[in-house]
């Protein structure tokens, strides 16, 4: 029973990591850039959802009531809009001018963007008329059906937010599969990832494909932002840091550059963390050590299987 419960917990956590990890991996697959500011795209998505609730469902929020279920799609749209806007601006303003710079330059820029976005939310969110101060945690609204009492089949505890998170991952993964393998833009994306110069000879606008990669990553991160808000019932300006690092670990674990690797890596990492909490005895067990185990995995992967579980494209590049 403990095992089954931890499997549920691990899948919940893992689905969240997977949704964020896809963003690291699609961008890396196209331009070999590790966008360390991607965690902040996730955070901005969560705040985008919160802002949408504050703007359109204020009476529910103030009255402490659950938002109607149809608020969920509206909040998803708000979250995605916020994340995509920031991601596209980030690419255009910060990364594109550095396209041919040494690889350290965009990496340091990414860290700068991270700090900038965190501080912007911390200092400015509360300055928006009628919005709460965001220097500390801000409560995330509850939404009918996806918030509320857990289900307890066979003695297991399954939170409603778990269903949302895992369901979101399944839908996003299916959508991504269709997009990448069946649409013209998706194939162009694969072409750019395999050989950008030859892709240009085909008439593919590489700059446009890079923007598409950022948009896909931001969309999934925004949905993850809502999932996180529903799971922990609050959001804060720092939430992207640890989640981002974990998702990056998941992407490396699966094989960075490989979309299915990101999904597999996310789920694996989530399950390992959940099992570590339950089954590692004594001082090193429990939730305070789970992050240590997660990053220990990152280091082990980097040392023994740097191409990740499913193998990265870097290796088989001509």
């Amino acid at each position: 029973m403990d095992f089954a419960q931890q499997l549920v917990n691990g899948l919940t956590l893992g689905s969240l990591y997977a949704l964020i990890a896809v963003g690291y991996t699609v961008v890396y697959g196209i331009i070999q850039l590790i966008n360390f500011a991607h965690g902040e795209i996730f955070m901005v998505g969560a705040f985008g959802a919160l802002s949408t609730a504050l703007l359109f469902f204020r009476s529910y929020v103030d009255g402490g009531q659950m938002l109607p279920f149809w608020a969920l799609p509206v909040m998803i749209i708000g979250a995605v809009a916020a994340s995509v806007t920031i991601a596209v601006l980030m690419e255009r303003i910060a990364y594109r001018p550095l396209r041919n710079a040494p690889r350290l330059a965009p990496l340091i820029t990414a860290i700068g963007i991270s700090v900038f976005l965190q501080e912007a939310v911390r200092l400015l969110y509360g300055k928006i008329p009628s919005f709460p101060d965001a220097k500390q945690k801000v409560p995330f609204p509850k939404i009918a059906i996806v918030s509320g009492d857990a289900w307890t089949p066979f003695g297991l505890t399954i939170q409603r937010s778990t269903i949302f998170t895992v369901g979101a991952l399944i839908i996003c993964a299916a959508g991504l599969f269709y997009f990448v393998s069946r649409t013209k833009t998706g194939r162009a994306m694969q072409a750019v990832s395999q050989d950008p110069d030859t892709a240009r000879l085909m008439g593919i606008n590489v700059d446009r494909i890079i923007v598409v990669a950022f948009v896909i990553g931001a969309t999934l991160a925004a949905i993850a932002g809502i999932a996180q808000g529903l799971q922990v019932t609050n959001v804060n300006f720092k939430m992207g840091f640890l989640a981002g690092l974990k998702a990056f670990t998941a992407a490396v674990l699966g094989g960075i550059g490989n979309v299915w690797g990101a999904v597999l890596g996310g789920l694996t990492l989530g399950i390992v963390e959940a099992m570590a909490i339950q089954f590692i005895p004594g001082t090193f067990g429990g939730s305070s050590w789970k992050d240590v185990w997660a990053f220990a995995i990152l280091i082990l992967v980097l040392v023994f299987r740097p191409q990740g579980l499913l193998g990265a494209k870097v290796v088989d590049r001509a």
Partner: protein
Amino acid sequence: MSAMLEVKDLVVSYGKIKAVKGISFTVGEGEVVSLIGTNGAGKTTTLRTISGLLRPVSGSITFNGQDLTKVQAHDIVALGLAHSPEGRRIFPKLSVEENLMLGAFSRKDKSIRSDLQAAFELFPILEERRAQPAGTFSGGEQQMLAMGRAMMSRPKLLMLDEPSMGLSPLMMKRIMTTVSTLQEQGTTILLVEQNAQAALKRATKGYVLEVGKIVLSGTGKELLESDDVRKAYLGED
């Protein structure tokens, strides 16, 4: 009548290294023009500059009256200029059919499917293996795929960079025969080769490139018969 492609005083460099040092040549409609020269002569650099992947230091490139040096690389194929690059550069993880369809990426007309059939007729092996990942192909098959892919854009001018590189004599012959077939079907061709014999035999016109400069030009026949070419490129004395 002005030429389809006109390259004038083209200079291209990689940082401080000048790879192409002021070359001029023309390709007229319906011609097969061969650009020959040893390794490092600047042939690939020239083609990549025409395609917009590299920008010239100076000089002009005019295609059907349009200045290509101001057009973005991804917009050039839509003007009717296809480039089959050195080393084939097929997309290894995509299937044969996906590779071919990417050749038609810039097109929006309705006859893409019938052109796919035409590519399969040109190279029947591609149809047999249409769903196979292109990376599993032999060099010759990859070359056929690369040419088929370039033809999928319906080019007015097809640029081929060393299509015979690393191929068996039999496969080389097959590829060169296809070059003639394509010309007969109305495609103008700019053929870059180290294999001078094969390239000049089919050429209406040829240019010999040596360390970034054109040192000799003439009809294919003239060049094949010239002593300099025979010595330098055909290993005769």
